[in-house]
């Protein structure tokens, strides 16, 4: 079959061809970019935190009438209260492990700082997020230590929330260690925090531990965490609890009652006070998830709409050309020839649409890069997009084309 008659026929339907071609082009441009956005959001949500996420929940509570943590006596009192709380939680039968901790991955409550290999540095800091807590931090989080040792009870001290205590030992993540010491191991090396002159020794290295912040500005140090064995005493405290397998619900309910039994003078928020890690994760990524769902819905509707447009337009063309089809059949064309004709015609229109659409897709992506700080789209997305649009066109054209192929040759002799 030659292409010539197809082009000749299309020339007589310029407006229709241009419209459907444009629709295919725009659909391709939007679908490629939407799928790319979905892909990016999914990879963001899917990135590992580095902790063992099951059976984990966080208690955030606030003491009522607590002393100020700015005085030594106040900090000591608050620390005793925190230790009592932690001990009460630890005694629950449904609880496996408890740690007093300042924050956790994805919580979006972060204490950031700059780390340097030189004392009293003025510049050249590596951004990091500090996790303050007791010796159970790593084991309760379930993060994996790859070198050195975990904190022991002897390492742990406590200090008022705004009081600056010395930090003789720290544990850092592999990612931060590599940034601080690109050539060689960081284990046993000395670092200085926030331009201070007091040294801290790296005693352990964690494979991976994400920081609490999921916002874009913190993405450059998303895995650069530092663990500091200091309980920060304040009018509020956080306890990370790992429940025994299958006893999560019981542990969460029991934790609430146990804390109030120790000391009723406290506030635990109804919805934000005791939260499973699953809900912390859902909260952190809710916007990404809803954006991905929206983009997915848009893609499906667009593809359905374009398919419906192709079916509609081709149906009309088939109706319009019934007589010509009859003539072709009478002159010896088989049903399959007619079917092929319409399929080829659609491939031709879709092909033109795809060429325009590719340029548009790249243009839209460029525009998103400029105005929305998106990444450049890999060519793979374009390739898949083109394939989807072409296959969709063929599927959509099949129904009216088959109807065309069944036009009997005798139509040629009838007047309508």
């Amino acid at each position, binding site marked *: 079959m030659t292409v010539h008659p197809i082009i000749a026929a299309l020339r007589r339907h310029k*407006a*229709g061809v241009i*419209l*459907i071609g*444009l*629709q295919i082009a*725009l*659909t391709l*441009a*939007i679908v490629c970019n*939407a799928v790319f956005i979905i892909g990016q959001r999914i990879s963001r949500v899917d990135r590992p935190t580095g902790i063992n996420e099951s059976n984990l929940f966080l208690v955030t509570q*606030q003491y*009522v*009438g607590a002393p*100020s943590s*700015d005085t030594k006596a106040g900090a000591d009192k608050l620390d005793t209260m925190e230790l009592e709380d932690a001990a009460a939680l630890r005694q629950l039968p449904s609880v496996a492990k408890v740690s007093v901790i300042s924050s956790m991955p994805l919580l979006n409550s972060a204490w950031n700082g700059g780390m340097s290999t030189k004392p009293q540095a*003025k*510049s050249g800091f590596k951004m990091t997020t500090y996790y303050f807590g007791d010796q159970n931090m790593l084991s309760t989080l379930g993060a994996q230590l790859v070198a050195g040792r975990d904190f022991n009870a002897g390492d742990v001290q406590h200090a008022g929330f*705004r009081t*600056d205590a010395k930090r003789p030992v720290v544990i850092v993540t592999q990612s931060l260690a590599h940034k601080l010491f690109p050539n060689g191991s960081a284990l046993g090396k000395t670092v200085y925090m926030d*331009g201070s002159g007091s040294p801290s020794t790296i005693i352990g290295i964690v494979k991976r531990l994400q920081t609490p912040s999921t916002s874009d500005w913190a993405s450059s140090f998303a895995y650069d965490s530092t663990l500091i064995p200091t309980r920060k005493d304040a*009018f509020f405290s956080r306890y990370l609890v790992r429940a025994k397998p299958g006893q999560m619900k019981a542990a969460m309910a029991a934790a609430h009652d146990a804390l109030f039994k120790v000391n009723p*003078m*406290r*506030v635990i*928020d109804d919805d934000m006070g005791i939260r499973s890690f699953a809900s912390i994760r859902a*909260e952190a990524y*809710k*916007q990404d998830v*809803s*954006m991905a769902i*929206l*983009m997915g819905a*848009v893609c499906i*509707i*667009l593809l359905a*709409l*374009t398919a*419906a*447009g192709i079916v*509609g*337009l081709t149906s*009309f*063309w088939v*109706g*319009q050309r019934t007589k010509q089809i009859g003539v072709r059949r009478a002159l010896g064309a088989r049903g399959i020839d007619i079917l092929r004709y319409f399929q080829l015609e659609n491939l031709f229109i879709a092909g033109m649409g795809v060429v325009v659409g590719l340029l548009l897709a790249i243009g839209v992506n460029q525009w*998103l890069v400029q105005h*929305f*700080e998106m990444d450049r789209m890999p060519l793979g997305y374009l390739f898949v997009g083109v394939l989807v649009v072409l296959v969709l066109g063929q599927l959509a054209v099949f129904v009216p084309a088959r109807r065309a192929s069944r036009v009997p040759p005798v139509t040629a002799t009838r007047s*309508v």
Partner: protein
Amino acid sequence: MLSYYLQLAWRSLRRYKTLTVLMVLAIAVGIGTSMTTLTVLHVLSGDPIPAKSGKLFRVRINTFPDDRFQPTDKTPDNLTRRDATALLGDARGDHQAVMSAGSGVLITPQGEPMRAQARYTTADFFPMFNVPMRYGRAWNGQADTAHARVAVISSQLNDLLFGDQSGVGKTLQFGDASLRIVGVLGSWDMNPRFYDLSNGEYGDSEQVFVPLSTALDLHLGTSGTMNCWGNAKDAHDLDAPCIWLQYWVELDSPAKVAAYQRYLHNYMALQQQAGRFRHPAQVRLQNVMQWLDYKGVVPADVRMQVWLAFGFLMICLLNTVGLLLAKFLRRGGEIGVRRALGASRRDVFMQYLIESLVIGMVGGLLGLVLAYAGVALVRQQPTEYAAFVHMDLGILLMTLLLALVASLVAGLLPAWRAMQIQPARALKAY
């Protein structure tokens, strides 16, 4: 004539039911999504205080020491207590207020502790932001200087603590502090909460307002961004190297704005002379809308969704144009007969345009329903602004206008082509 065309349109639309439904749905979905996203954008980029937004200015200066100063860094949002106190003392604006967010614990009448959001600020806060009072009045400047143990509470908190009686004159136990209630707010919610975006951009107003001097005396808990350099024994100290206070000024005329700019530059020059730093003075004075724009209060996702929705609407329109075109041209014979019987080109054009308009208006009305459903869906989303998204009359009228324009645009080309059919040729082929 119009009713005849409407009748013809109705007949034609009924003849191709599937096609009609498809076209109506395409327009409805396109308009529904566009209007939903526009509604969200409209609400989020709205002016929280239209009467005054051009006169209220956020004051920012960069007083970082030289070794912390990077010319490419943004000027910090907040001020040190030392600078805020100095600017407040000079009082060069029509009104000015320093503030910080905070929180503390209250005991409800049922004896249960409850956490309350607080704002520690100075007297001008209330007249400057047009804060209405239900009972009593706000504290004045003397109360600020006297570190008076007073508080203003929200209407909601008043009802919780005192039922429908006024709490003015009663004592509020806020953490360790006993404060005398001097005023109760009327209904006052700023969304977005432009005066301090660092503690949630949307939400109810604070429940407790306390003079900043009093709050510092009593060591009430502050919240928000605290950025310190060097060693600070207490970040709240007057000379602590920490930036944490928001500063707003009201300037009622452009001349005053210019004068205030000069004043700030002078202030920074004095600081440079005093040897605090040598880097260039970064003075930033932004009114409410500029400030909201600078802080990017409208999420990028929302802006992207608006563009997406309009791309979507365009595809829907292209789809409708294509289908209408095919449909009208297929009726060439019918058009030929009408023309031969004396209908002018204009008559044919009008007839088909009206058919497109019928589709457009039905699609638009359905689109309006979809937009309502879309807004209801947005309100279900777990975003902090969800509760504030609503349809208003402007958006409603805009939807109908958009439907009208969309269907006109969609119908124009097909009706034009239909009008140009040659009666003789069409009849011959028929």
